[in-house]
Structures are given as structure tokens and as C-alpha cells.
């Protein structure tokens, strides 16, 4: 019997290390013959820390939201006793939620130990690479990817086979295979999860790609904010090298391929291919004009192919199951599965992998369990700062590259941030503009100055100083920035503003003309008053008001002076009688 603990970043943040220590202490104390192992992330982050107890017959019981205190009960009552501890076990509905998914990219996540190559080999790891290197020609590899219909999962959704083919046909002896693991979209973390939970899947995918294009050297560009991912990936590379899956004369075919990690230093724009290459070369990560494309002139001016983590993680599965099997999933134009990071105001947040073609409603309500506290769904933000907000009326939109693009959002890397009635859409647009404005590299004037001007306008609107004509001015700037920017960052930066104006124009108008924020989110637009019925005159608000705007005698109803009030919200948070009204 063994105990397996989910130790991705999420699990660790939720206390998995404490749980592991507690188990080890109890096992040592009782002198039990029980091993404690680790695995990656199963994707149901809201259930972390997750502990599997696996008996010798392979039967697995999953305990969720385990605390260090629960560990003694699990050992004494379940392992040693007869008590099933149903109350700690994963619920039927959560099992159904996982069952509704189709896991290709996340096939091993939360199942194998990411730090042991033996675990990956036990689930047929590196067999696909062996087949590609020993049996298939580069043309056949590319053809299989073409049949599968795999598109780049990083954001743009460009057909993978096309890129591989271009890099393969590009003349030159030295070529590079690069993995973009600079997952910069706020709200997306599937790449981190793959790196932490199944790093060998990425290595195997890159190895197959390298064979296809004829590259002998690969680089994985990982965000510096993912320290655990870097450690596990390096460990996996070392193991693969020892086992002969990286290095010289792989599978005795005479083919050489080796990999190294390059830690990024924090710049969203480095998700853009040419900027990433500049950063790999030790320069400021600024994009350059295409063509020439990286397939012709990339890293050190050599033919280079760049794909993201999720794209590569699909590759070994495709070769083990066939391109047709992959293409059988999804829609006509969008094949296979896609991993989404479901977050925000959704009940069951985490990573979900689903076949393309399901609707947004399926994902948010059937798999995600709906909205927290059963509030009203307002919108879902897809595609991060380059994407847009999709309103409730379009919840039946199919998950398909073209269908999502039609709404004004994009598939992007798969961030799905759910918003409810308390989220202000103008503030959301401001939030994203604040992000892109900071992350603009500064090369194109429209992007650099334009996003700054847009941010100023949005700040002014959310501060109650919006003017007549601001919406039109924003729209004009949006189109000019799209036209006047060289790379994807600037070309898509206006999307969050355009979609919120398109679907939530009334919220902009409320802010500008009525100085009202219906979501009660923009503080400068709120008024704080005291409910005369509820106030008991305890004086807590008066004592805590930083500007002495509250007057009133002890045990008598207090009053807020609206001219002095700075709308900091202190009175609201300290009042124990719910007598401060926000309007």
C-alpha cells in the first residue's frame, strides 16, 4: 500500500508539504510499511491537497482537502481500521466532473511521479519517440501531425505541421527546436502544470519535432516565476540523458538531440516568437518584423521552430494513437482537445481538458459547477490580455478557434476567467490595458503611446471623471493601435476594450453619464451611507475613519459626511451590524 500526494504548485500552496510531513511522522511513529510518494496536479485545484491511498491491488481511494490533522484519521481509521471516511473522500459529482474530460495533454498529470522517469516509461513513455526515430521519415512525422490537425496551443492557433514543414525545408545544417514555456497570460497555468506534472511528455514531443525538422539542439524558455517547474524539468532532462533519450546517437539511429533550459526574466512580450528569440540571445526581448520567419531565420539566424508546451505534450499521444484518433476529436476546423484554466468566480476552478466543440456553458456550468454563491453569470474572459469578454448571451458558443474569434475574443492559451454580477466590465478593461501598457516593449509608437492614452481614459472613467465622447475616442484608438503595431501584443491589446464596449456599452455609459458602477466595484463611484434602522451607534466606523468623515454620539445613529468621505470602505469592513450601505 502507498500514499500518493498531489504536489504541484497549487497543492503545495494549499499545504501538501505539511500533509506529507504529517504522514511521514505518523508512519514512522507507528512503524508502518507504507511509502509516501508524490505526483503532479490532477487539475481539480479546489480540492487540494489531494491524497490517494493505493492498495497493493491498485485500488485507489482519493481523499480531498486533506489537512495535517486529517492524516492521523486516514492512517488510523482508514488504513489500519475499517472506517471508509466517506466525508473526506472525493464526492461523486467531482468524479463525474473529471470523467467528463478527455485527457490527452494531462494524461499523466496527477497520476505518475514527475520526478521518476520509470513512472513515465511504465505508461509507454518514449515509445512514440522510438517509433518516430527508428521507423518514420521526417515527411511521415509531419504528415501524421497534418492528419491529426494539431494547431499551436499558445494563442495564435497556427497549424503545427506547417511550421514544422517550413523549418524542415529551410536550408541549413544547424537548426533549433525551441519550446515556449513563457506562459505569460495572467489566468493561464496549463503549461506550468505540464512542466510540473509530466515533464517527459514535453521532452518526448520536442524530440519528435526535432527529428522532423532536423534539429540537434533544443531550448526550453521557461518563466522565472515557475521555480518548481524549472527544477522538475531539469531533473527530467538529466534522467532522459542518462537513459539515452537525449544526447548522441539516439536509439542507435545516428540522430543527436539535446536540450537545455533558459530561464526567462519576466516580460510578457517574450511570448511573441521573435521577441523570445531576442531574449534567448541575451538581448532586450523586442519583436522584429516578419518575414523572415523564425523557420527561415530564427535563433542565431538559423532555422528555428517554436511551439508551446501544450502543443508538444500532444505529440507523443498522436504517434501512439494515430493522427486519425486525434482528428476524430473536436470540430471540423479545430481538432483534438484543449486544456482550459478555469478560474475566477467559478465554483470548481482548475484545469480541465475537453474535446473541442463543447460549448462554453458545458465547461463553466457542467464541469465548473457554475458560479460561486450561485450569483448571476456575467461574462467569461478568454485569451488573456489579447482576448475578450464573452457575455451570457453567447454561452452556447462552441469551443472552436473560428467560433471563439467571431465573438471578438480568442482561444488564446486557454485562460477562462469567469465573472459574476460583482465584476465591473469597465474595470476589467482597465485592468488589461494596465497590463499591456506596462508590458508594451515600446518599439511601436501606437502600442507604446496608444495604450497609455487608453489607460488614462479608462482610469478617468472608473474614477467618475469620464467625459462625453470617451467611448468613441477609445474605439478610434483601438483600431489605430491594431493597425499601427507590429506584433501580436499591440495588435490584440485593444480586444478587451473592444469586446466590453461591444457587449457592455451600458456599463461604460453608466460610469460616464450617471457616475454609477452597477457592479459596485469602482470605489470612487460609490456612496457610503448609514442605515438608520440598523446602526446601533457602536462607534467602530467613526473610530476607524481615516478622514473623520463620520459623526455621531455613542449609542446614537451615526452619519457620513459625503463631502469629506474618501470612499476607502473602512467603515463598511469594520461595521458588525451591516449598517453601512454601498450604493
Amino acid at each position, binding site marked *: 500500500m502507498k500514499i500518493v500526494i498531489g504536489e504541484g*504548485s*497549487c497543492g*503545495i*500552496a*494549499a499545504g501538501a508539504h505539511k500533509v506529507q510531513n504529517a504522514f511521514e511522522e505518523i508512519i514512522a511513529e507507528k512503524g508502518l510499511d507504507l511509502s509516501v510518494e508524490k505526483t503532479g496536479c490532477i487539475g481539480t*485545484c*479546489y480540492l*487540494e491537497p489531494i491524497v490517494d491511498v493505493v492498495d497493493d491491488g491498485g485500488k485507489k481511494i482519493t481523499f480531498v482537502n486533506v489537512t495535517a490533522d486529517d492524516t492521523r484519521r486516514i492512517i488510523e481509521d482508514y488504513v489500519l481500521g475499517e472506517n471508509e471516511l466517506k466525508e473526506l473522500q472525493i464526492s461523486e459529482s467531482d468524479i463525474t466532473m473529471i470523467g467528463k474530460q478527455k485527457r490527452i495533454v494531462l494524461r499523466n498529470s496527477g497520476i505518475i511521479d514527475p520526478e521518476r522517469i520509470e513512472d513515465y516509461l511504465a505508461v509507454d513513455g518514449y515509445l512514440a519517440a522510438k517509433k518516430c526515430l527508428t521507423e518514420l521519415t521526417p515527411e511521415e512525422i509531419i504528415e501524421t501531425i497534418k492528419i491529426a490537425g494539431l494547431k499551436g496551443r499558445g494563442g495564435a492557433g497556427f497549424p503545427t505541421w506547417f511550421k514544422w514543414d517550413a523549418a524542415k525545408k529551410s536550408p541549413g545544417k544547424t537548426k533549433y527546436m525551441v519550446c515556449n514555456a513563457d*506562459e*505569460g*497570460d*495572467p*489566468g*493561464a*497555468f496549463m503549461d*506550468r502544470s505540464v512542466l510540473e506534472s509530466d515533464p517527459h511528455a514535453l521532452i518526448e514531443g520536442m524530440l519528435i519535432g526535432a527529428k522532423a525538422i532536423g534539429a540537434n539542439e533544443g531550448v526550453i524558455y521557461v*518563466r*522565472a*516565476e*515557475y*521555480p518548481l517547474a524549472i527544477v522538475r524539468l531539469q531533473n527530467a532532462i538529466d534522467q532522459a540523458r542518462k537513459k539515452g533519450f537525449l544526447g548522441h546517437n539516439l536509439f542507435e539511429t545516428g540522430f543527436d538531440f539535446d536540450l537545455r533550459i*533558459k*530561464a*526567462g*526574466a*519576466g*516580460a*510578457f512580450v517574450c511570448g511573441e516568437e521573435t521577441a523570445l528569440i531576442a*531574449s*534567448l*540571445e*541575451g*538581448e*532586450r*526581448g*523586442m519583436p522584429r518584423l516578419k518575414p523572415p520567419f523564425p523557420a527561415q531565420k530564427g535563433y*542565431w539566424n538559423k532555422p528555428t521552430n517554436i511551439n508551446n508546451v501544450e502543443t508538444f505534450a500532444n505529440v507523443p499521444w498522436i504517434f501512439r494513437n494515430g493522427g486519425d484518433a486525434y482528428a476524430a476529436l473536436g470540430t471540423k476546423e479545430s481538432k483534438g482537445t484543449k486544456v482550459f*484554466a*478555469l*478560474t*475566477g*468566480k467559478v465554483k470548481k*476552478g*482548475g484545469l480541465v481538458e475537453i474535446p473541442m466543440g463543447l460549448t462554453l456553458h458545458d465547461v463553466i456550468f457542467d464541469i465548473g459547477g457554475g458560479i460561486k454563491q450561485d450569483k448571476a453569470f456575467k461574462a467569461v*474572459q478568454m485569451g*488573456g490580455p489579447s482576448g475578450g469578454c464573452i457575455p451570457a448571451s453567447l454561452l452556447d458558443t462552441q469551443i472552436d478557434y473560428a467560433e471563439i474569434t467571431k465573438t471578438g475574443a480568442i482561444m488564446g492559451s486557454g*485562460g477562462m*476567467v*469567469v*465573472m459574476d454580477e460583482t*465584476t465591473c466590465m469597465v474595470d*476589467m478593461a482597465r*485592468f*488589461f490595458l494596465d*497590463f499591456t501598457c506596462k*508590458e508594451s*516593449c515600446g518599439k511601436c509608437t501606437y502600442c507604446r503611446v496608444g495604450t497609455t492614452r487608453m489607460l488614462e481614459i479608462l482610469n478617468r472613467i472608473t474614477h467618475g471623471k469620464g467625459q462625453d465622447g470617451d467611448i468613441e475616442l477609445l474605439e478610434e484608438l483601438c483600431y489605430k493601435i491594431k493597425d499601427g503595431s507590429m506584433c501580436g501584443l499591440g495588435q490584440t491589446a485593444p480586444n478587451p476594450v473592444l469586446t466590453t464596449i461591444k457587449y457592455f456599452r451600458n456599463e461604460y455609459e453608466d460610469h460616464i453619464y450617471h457616475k454609477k458602477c452597477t457592479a459596485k466595484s469602482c470605489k470612487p463611484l460609490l456612496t457610503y451611507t448609514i442605515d438608520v434602522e440598523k446602526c446601533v451607534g457602536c462607534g467602530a466606523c467613526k473610530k476607524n475613519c481615516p478622514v473623520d468623515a463620520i459623526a455621531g454620539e455613542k449609542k446614537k445613529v451615526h452619519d457620513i459626511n459625503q463631502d469629506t468621505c474618501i470612499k476607502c470602505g473602512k467603515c463598511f*469592513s469594520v461595521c458588525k451590524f451591516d449598517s453601512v450601505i454601498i450604493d
Partner: protein
Amino acid sequence: MSQEKQEHGHGCDCGCHGEQPNPFVELNPVLDHYADIPGSLITVLQKAQELYGFLSIELMRYIAIETHNSIAKVYGVATFYTQFRFEPVGKYLIMLCQGTACHVNGSKMIEEAVMDFLEIKEGETTPDGLFTLNNVACLGCCSLSPVMMINDDTYGQLTKDKVTHILAELKEAVNNEATVSETVSQEVTA
């Protein structure tokens, strides 16, 4: 000492011709290792920051001289990336996530609670040198939002009370340590 290491300058341009001790001698193995690997400037800067906590002008000048780059180039690259810091940071570096999911779930409120408790603003360090507050883009733990990292530890599902409690505990731990080491040093002196 090897001949190679002696070749390194001492990081100043005061005209003392290397008579003053080199304050960045710990960086020399890194410089040697990456000397022949093109495109390593960012990696060298990262290693330098690991060693010294932040990139001072003197340190960047030293790196520029040793890597045969102009100081403008080194400064330009360093300031482009958010990871690099140009001032010393506190014992505890608070990285408060301001990603989309955290924003939707109230990261601004958490920021206010941290600022109130530590009486510093974003980017500042407490006068006792204990805490530095930095806002960062997504940490990738979105389903636990709002999230912060303090040094290498991640804290999720924060509330105002929870964050104040965490900071208070860290502060207390340091104070206890200080008292212990004081007592020890007193005993030693005695």
C-alpha cells in the same frame, strides 16, 4: 588562484588600477563559465542577482566590463525585464499576484491590507529591512486566487485577515530569532 581569475578587474573605474579589493569576486566563476557561451547576458545577470540580491550600478558596470558589453547595453537589458531589481530587498520579498483571476477575486483588497499592515507602498521596503512588497503578473496558481508568494512559499485563498496574520507571524518569528541570538551573544560575552 588561477591565472584566469586574476585577469578579472575589480569593478571600479576610480583609477586605482586594481589595488582595491574586488567586491564582486564571487561572480568570477559565473563569468568564467559563461565567457564562451554567446547570448548569456541575461543568465549572468540572474546569477548576479542571486548572489547579491539586486543589481547595483557598480555590479552592472563590472558585468559590462567583464562581458565586453557597454554599460548601456547591460543596463538596457536589465531594465527591460521585471525580474531584475536595482535596490536592495527585504528579508522577505512579498510577490503579490495581480493576475486576472486574482484581480477578479479581490487582489487589490489584499494589497491594501499588506500596505496598511506594513505601512509601505508597492515597490517599497519596510524601514527595518524585513519586507519588500512587489506586485507581479500571474504566478500561475489562479484557482487559489488571490495568491502571494513570500520568498519561495506560496499562500493562496487570501483574505485581509489571513494576510495580516501571515505577516504578523513572520515578523514575530524574526523578533524571536533576534531575541534568541541576543541571549546567545550575551551568554557568550558573559
